[in-house]
């Protein structure tokens, strides 16, 4: 234990403040409250409103909280970047909850509960400095996501997507846990600081690789991204907007922190990450070019963006990477927020319309404000200044270039230019295409009611026809407004944000 103390105190002054855990605790409470909402004769969307308020309070709490809080004997450490990440996650969650409260169709209580649990897991995961806590937090974040993907029980695609997501994730997380157990066995302790002291042996190397592969799967980085397109295409854009952003954000933080603290021991960490980065960029871009479904397109765009982040992480994992580790951490966190905010924005705009690109047709005529928000989110994803995407990419590429990955940065620039092609198709759909048929309900929602098999077993009580509560335009506006604010301000205020992160 002494070695842990010396290492962590070298850069983290001890300070006991369990108050920081208020946010996750409140969220778990909200989850229980929303599960039993119908017992308390509370209207369906009230849960989402409460969750939104809690998330907002949690975000402020995290933002204004003290720095360098160490809990549970250095297992959970809220340094500057962890607090920023937690605030970011809570802001995203708050936006999602506001949107659900405003325009969630059908029963939203359970979705709120699941989301609240997942967020609390994510808030813990960003600060984990111990293998067990990390695994627990990651599982807590991703399990509700499996269920959220399959949320519409009466639609086979949703369930099929959820099952695939579940089985593949469990398989890869078992890889991860197996690797973690092996590392624990060899190093004698589960704390990252101890793992750094691990001597390099073929067995420990294999364990580390398995651990990283598990994390790759969580982030849907290439060779292990197969679940993402099917899982997202199966379910509604509303649930995908959560499942595609918050777990991924937590996964990014974990892998960045892990590489920063542990990788020095493993010389091959950099090449492994580079393989993952290049594979993700290449596979994600090519596959996305021919997509006709918004959710699938954003799934592949997610793969590409994770590729960019892995590139920076790989840069900081190199032999002389230590000098760049802080900037790498900072730029990857900033870029992760920029990317997730934009993706959630696009998906929330698409939730009102429907999953496929053709559903977005004529959006500029129906909902001009939403169409312009969509355009801004897409431009941020492309990386057009002065939006967040550009500054995120600028810092990412400059750090990677400075750390010596010039070749891969050139690949990344080419991928950015190619990505402009398929992102523009979103704008093209929203602004130029004319909606073919005037059927208000898109094909997904039509399916919701159509394939309710008549002879469904009694206990699953055919879903009461979802009394469509009126979507309050103000709520949708607020949700998109929050995300828009993040996209616009992150770029311009990147100066103070970086000072906060370091």
């Amino acid at each position, binding site marked *: 234990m002494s070695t842990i103390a010396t290492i962590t105190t070298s850069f983290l002054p001890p300070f006991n403040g369990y108050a920081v855990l208020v946010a996750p605790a409140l969220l778990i409470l909200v989850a229980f409250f929303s599960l039993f909402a119908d017992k308390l004769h509370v209207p369906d969307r009230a849960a989402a409103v409460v969750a939104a308020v809690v998330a907002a309070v949690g975000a402020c709490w995290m933002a204004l909280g003290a720095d360098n809080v160490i809990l549970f004997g250095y297992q959970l450490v809220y340094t500057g970047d962890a607090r920023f990440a937690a605030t970011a996650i809570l802001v995203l969650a708050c936006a999602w909850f506001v949107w659900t409260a405003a325009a969630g169709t059908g029963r939203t209580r359970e979705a709120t509960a699941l989301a609240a649990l997942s967020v609390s897991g994510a808030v813990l995961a960003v600060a984990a400095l111990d293998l067990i806590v990390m695994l627990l937090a990651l599982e807590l974040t991703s399990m509700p996501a499996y269920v959220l993907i399959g949320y519409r029980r009466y639609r086979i695609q949703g369930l099929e997507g959820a*099952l*695939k997501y579940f*089985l*593949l994730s469990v*398989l*890869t997380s078992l*890889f991860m846990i197996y690797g973690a157990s092996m590392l624990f066995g060899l190093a004698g302790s589960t704390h990252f600081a101890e793992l750094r002291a691990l001597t390099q042996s*073929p067995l420990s*190397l*294999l364990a580390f*690789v*398995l651990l990283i*592969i598990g994390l790759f*799967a969580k982030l849907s980085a290439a*060779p*292990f991204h*197969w*679940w993402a*397109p*099917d899982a997202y295409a199966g379910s509604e854009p509303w649930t995908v907007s959560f499942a595609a952003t918050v777990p991924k954000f937590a996964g990014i933080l974990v892998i960045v922190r892990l590489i920063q603290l542990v990788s020095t021991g493993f*010389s*091959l960490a950099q*090449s*492994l990450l580079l*393989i993952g980065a290049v594979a993700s960029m290449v*596979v994600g*871009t*090519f*596959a*996305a*070019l*021919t997509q006709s479904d918004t959710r699938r397109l954003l799934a592949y765009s997610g793969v590409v963006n994770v590729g960019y982040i892995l590139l920076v992480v790989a840069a900081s994992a190199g032999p002389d990477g230590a000098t760049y580790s802080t900037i790498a951490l900072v730029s990857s966190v900033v870029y992760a927020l920029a990317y997730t905010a934009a993706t959630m924005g696009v998906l929330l705009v698409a939730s009102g319309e429907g999953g496929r690109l053709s559903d977005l047709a004529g959006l500029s005529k129906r909902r001009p404000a939403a169409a312009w928000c969509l355009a801004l989110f897409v431009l941020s994803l492309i990386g057009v200044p002065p939006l967040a995407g550009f500054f995120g990419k600028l810092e990412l590429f400059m750090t990677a270039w400075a750390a010596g990955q010039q070749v891969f940065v050139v690949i990344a620039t080419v991928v950015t230019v*190619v990505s402009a*092609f398929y992102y523009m198709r979103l704008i093209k759909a929203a602004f130029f295409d004319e909606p073919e048929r005037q059927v208000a309900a898109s094909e997904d929602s039509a399916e919701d009611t159509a394939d309710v098999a008549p002879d469904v077993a009694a206990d699953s009580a055919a879903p009461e026809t979802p009394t469509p509560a009126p979507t309050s335009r103000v709520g949708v506006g607020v949700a998109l407004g929050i995300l828009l604010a993040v996209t616009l301000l992150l770029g311009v205020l990147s100066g103070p944000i970086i000072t906060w992160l370091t």
Partner: protein
Amino acid sequence: MEHVAQNLNLWWVLLVPLLPAAAFVVLLPMSRRVRNACRFVPIAAMVVALGLSIAAAVQVYPGSHIGEPFWQVAWQLATLGGHAVTISFAVDSLAVLMLVMVCIVGICVQIFSLFYMKDDDRRGWFFCVMALFLAAMLGFVLSGSLLVEFALWEIMGVCSYLLIGFWYRDEAPRKASQKAFLVTRTGDVGFFVALAAIYAACGSFEFEHIFATVANWSPALLMVSSIGLIWAAIGKSAQIPLSAWLPDAMAGPTPGSALIHAATMVVAGVFMLTRMLPVLTLNPLAMQIILVVGIITALYGAILACFQTDLKKVLAFSTISQLGYMVAAIGVGSATAAVFHLTTHAFFKALLFLTAGIIIHATHTQDMRQMGGLARRMPITTVVWTIGAFSLAGVLPLSGFFSKDEIFTVIWHSGQYWAFAGAAAVGVLTSLYVVKTWFTVFFGNSCNVNAHEGTATELVPVSILAALTLVCGFLTIPLARFLGHEGEWPSLTMAATSTAVMLCGAALGYTIYARQRSTERLKQIFNVVVSAADARFYLDWVYDTFFIRPYFWLSEALWKLDAVIIDGAVNGVAWLYRGLTRLINLLDARIIDGAVNGAAWLYRALTRGAQWFDSTVIDGIVNGLGTLSRAIGAALRRVQTGHLQRYQRLIVGAAVVIVAVLVLVLRFL
């Protein structure tokens, strides 16, 4: 020859060009009706300008050499890289002479057009543009820097464009104006290059600065600037090969042609050459070129004038040939001869044009064949035309004889005997076509019964010009001395030769045209020459086939290049993509049923992709990259088959591959 003191303060001479300019500025914004009403404003302005120029002439009287200004004003136009660039106006003897000449002719033409244009509803605009033109010409004459000269040179070009195209409703004037402006601008390209070269050489455009440093210019620079200036003069003074625009310019109103295409603008080229003589004389080759061009143009103009049936075309070609004379005079280095001929020519050619205007107005046609026997119906016009025509031909007491004789003597003294022979031949032809027009228009069977004499407003200016043509001849000596050159009466032998030349032409003309004998037999004998002449020696044909038609073709071709090749490369992508997706679907059927584990399949897909990629590169379609990525994208989507088992195998396969690769790397590391 004592020189007048240089410190005369002649600031008011600048008013001469400014008055018509003010008239233009006043008239421009007016509505059509108001502008028609105050047509007199420009005339008043010109009268005052004439007064001032005569006063200047008196003030400056004994005159001095060309290029030594009595008074000069300069101000700074701009600083270029810290180096100041100035523009200036200078009053010297040549300028004053030209001021007087231009003002006289200008006033006569304006008074004439009062009547001639009285029933045209846009006459106000006509006077407005005339005023601008006169202002530009007067300014041009007074300019002391090459840049000012060039600027006003182009303003005159625009005015001629507007005047030729005055009746823009019909086709001919529109085409003629554009042709005139473009051909003159072709000349201006030379002026541009010359200006750039001169500025590069001596860093300024002022004449005295240029003349001071011209001695130590590099020969290449001297050649370029002189060739450029000559090319510009050729363009402006309608010399060969850029003379095609002047005959077509007759489509404009006659008074306009009288002022611009006889008296003033076309001589601008000659005037500029006289101004830049000190530079040109240093370059013997340039002088030789000028001489050759002058003589050839004179011959070209004279020959074609004989074959014209349109009265105004005859005068146009006659102007071209007389300009050839002036250019030849400069070619042999004598500025005074050229200027003297320029002045006399201005008077009698303006006279001829205005009289032609009266005749056309009376007979309502420009075709000489429909005219005849006008002498009886229009006596005064006939007398006045005779004075002008005979002065053109070079009959003894008239001014034409003296100025032409001056040129003959100068060419003779220069020792270029071939040039003298050419000049003589032109003299013969000139008197030939003068006599021809004289007989066909005024004598023979009278076919215009209702032809009536011109009104007073027409005849007054014409008679003034006629008087001047009579008087000018006797001013040879004082004029020469005014320009600072020791003039003397033409020697007896030279006078005899030129009269002989004139009489020979006249006799030839009398025999052919006096007795209305049919000229068909003559036409068969010289049929080749006649058909060539009809086509103006194929000059226009050369323009069309070598310049205008290829230019149209080139612009179409380049636009297609632009639209097809450069654009095609960019939006060729869409067409390519459709073709290749069909190819992929074909391959698609075979891959799926092959149950392959992830790693092996990935490898084969890459090799096939590489082989397919080579075939596209070999075709050289670089932009296929966009399509390639879509094709690979489509191929990758094939892997995403939705079968869970496949995904699991892919994951495990990938993990195995990665571990294998890392282990290999570890061993070699």
